[in-house]
């Protein structure tokens, strides 16, 4: 292992909403960055890398190997390798919690349910089918309806004293439902609780296809929502683990770890 000591490895996760980067050295996170994804995925990935490197006083020439992941990985010519976010998330989750056996990653536009083994290797997965229900986008729509910020949704939802059932099938229909519920005087926190549980039911449905085991790792931007973590825990009936590190960075972290592995494999 001595030939990679002190070397820097980068993982960049270019999603539909944000581009994330993690820079590793000796399996320790040196720096990271999260930026909104612009029209050009290529530029977004590069900007995220540059931002992270600058924060640590580094430049791109210091990085020995880059792995790109996320939907934008096809526009990452600067990457040495591209790997899907499923594999990267599994790697990152396993690194942060080696007891992880199931992962739910809720991003801006998609949602992934995975089962992994003790080495962080994926053994089954399912993605949501081209639909906003069960993703961060659904919560964005909800926040606009209630004129709240995304950060306010979770804490408000857990103060509910009487959850209102909401459709879990379609974001557009659910939005209409919210407006109707508000009009008939239902409390905001009760409606929000219903929204969170509707999403959780959707996720639970995904896990009926892959199976779910302890421990269940929750990653992605939506993992910062305490209302969502609570709803998931109760619906899936598993203890949820949300990493102390930014849960949005799990994919990029996994990519950086894989960058290190790939470099080692190709350089003996």
């Amino acid at each position, binding site marked *: 292992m001595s030939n990679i000591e002190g070397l820097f490895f980068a993982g960049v996760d270019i999603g539909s909403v944000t581009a994330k980067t993690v820079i590793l050295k000796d399996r320790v996170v040196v720096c990271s960055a999260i930026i909104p994804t612009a029209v050009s995925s290529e530029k977004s990935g590069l900007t995220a890398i540059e931002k992270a490197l600058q924060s640590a006083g580094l430049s791109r020439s210091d990085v020995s190997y880059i792995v790109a992941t996320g*939907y934008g990985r096809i526009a990452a010519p600067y990457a040495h390798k591209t790997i*899907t976010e*499923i594999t990267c998330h599994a790697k990152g989750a396993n690194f942060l919690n080696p007891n992880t056996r199931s992962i739910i990653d809720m991003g801006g536009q998609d949602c992934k349910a995975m089962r992994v083994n003790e080495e962080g290797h994926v053994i*089954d*997965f399912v993605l949501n089918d*081209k639909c906003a229900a069960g993703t961060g986008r659904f919560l964005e729509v909800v926040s606009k309806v209630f004129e709240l910020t995304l950060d306010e949704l979770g804490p408000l939802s857990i103060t509910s004293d009487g959850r209102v059932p909401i459709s879990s099938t379609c974001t557009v229909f659910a939005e209409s439902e919210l407006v109707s519920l508000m009009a008939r005087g239902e409390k905001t926190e009760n409606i929000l609780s219903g929204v969170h549980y509707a999403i959780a039911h959707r996720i639970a449905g995904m896990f009926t*296809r892959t199976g779910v085991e302890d421990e269940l790792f929750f990653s992605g931007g939506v993992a910062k929502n305490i209302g969502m973590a609570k709803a998931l825990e109760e619906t899936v009936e598993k203890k949820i683990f949300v990493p102390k590190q930014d849960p949005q960075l799990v994919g990029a972290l996994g990519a950086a770890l894989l960058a290190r592995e790939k470099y080692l494999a190709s350089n003996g």
Partner: protein
Amino acid sequence: MSSIKMSFKDGMLNYPEELKEAFLESGGLKLMDGTYVSAEEIWDFMTKEAPRRFPFLYTVVPHAVFFYRIYHYVEFLWPIKYRYLLLSLHDRIVKARAKGTPLVFAQGGQTLEPYYVAKAIAIRPFLVQLFANCSVDGLSFKDLSLRELRNIEEGKRELSPDVCNIIGAHNLIKRGATPVDLVAPYALVRCSDMCYVVESHRSSARNTPIFLVDFPTNARPDQEWPVEYVAKSIRGLVKKVVEVGGKAPSDEDWKATIRLFNRGRQAARNFVWTWWGARRIPTYGDDLLGITRMANDMTADPVAVVQILEEANKELKERVDKNIKGIEIAEKPVRLFACGTCFYPPTERIEKAGGAIVGYDDWWGRILVDVEEEGDPYVNLAKASLRFSYEQSTEERAHWTAGQAKKCGARGMINQYNWGCSLQAASARMVNEIVKKEIGIPSLDLEMESLGRPELLEQYINRVESFIEMLS
């Protein structure tokens, strides 16, 4: 023949001159109307006329999804003849119709003997669309995609946004873009959405005659009544084809047609089994799909198709004997079985990701069943149709699928179907679970949006690449 790189100029692929001699030696094609097209004519068409008329096929477009797109390498000579049949389909059909041959729409899982024996040309949805696409010269890939999308949207507007994407083909028929003389599919369980799609024709201003070949669900070929029922339906079908301009078949016509189709099926089976038995995967996946496709839809000329299928076997055997691998296939790819209908995986991207499609269930089930050549042809066709894997219960179909996936050495299965395909959406999970239980391989469920849209490719390939990574 080892793999030869296509020439590339001005963004377009073309067959390289170094290939010409070998191709000319392979000979031309005899067509079902008795004419002969020489290898020289085919070569000139494929290298000069077709690139000018159909640039969408020759242009390098990384996100193209349609399977008959020209590949970067030539690994066999027979696909050149197959693509010739595809690209000349429009002209051949126009010529045949001018001589009085009716064009009949067929769909779903039936065999096409009843149509051809009555001297009609039968085309399925893919060929309906191909005819329309090739009726306009000079279409770019983008033009083609936009036309196809517009066509599907038009069809959905008239019927329902939930309808199967095959509505695109029906819309072309209704608009007269593909001049079908009779709409006569089998109403099969496999394609349960067919009935209401066919109903859409009843409201059409074109008044194209319709004949639905009714087909019983949950019937078995060893039961008497379904055989009689289907045989009676097929009799009615042939009679209807004759009414719209076909020719009443004699006993000899029946024997000759069934024998020809059986020959085609046998040749296709031999090809696939040889491919499966190869020590290294001998070609890229579209060639495997092309064989099963040809043996099913006959590309509007069963005589030419059977010749190509038999030539394909000779070429494959040589390649397998010499242990030649498909040039862009990994040394140890993740072998995947493709289950489901009406969507064909982008094999080139899958192969770039380290996978390889080694088998398809769609149409393969029909190729495994020959029609008896002696006796009542209607009864024989009925018995054969009732034995197709897709016409069995979902559970039986799943057991059959597991068997085929095991035979081709698959390590995973992709179960794919179109948005709007109720049957496949309902049965996919049961099939996946039975396959997993029986042979222990995982499945990936993929429900695809509108056909031909480049953007769907990334949704698809993201999942498939993850699946390949998981299995590798």
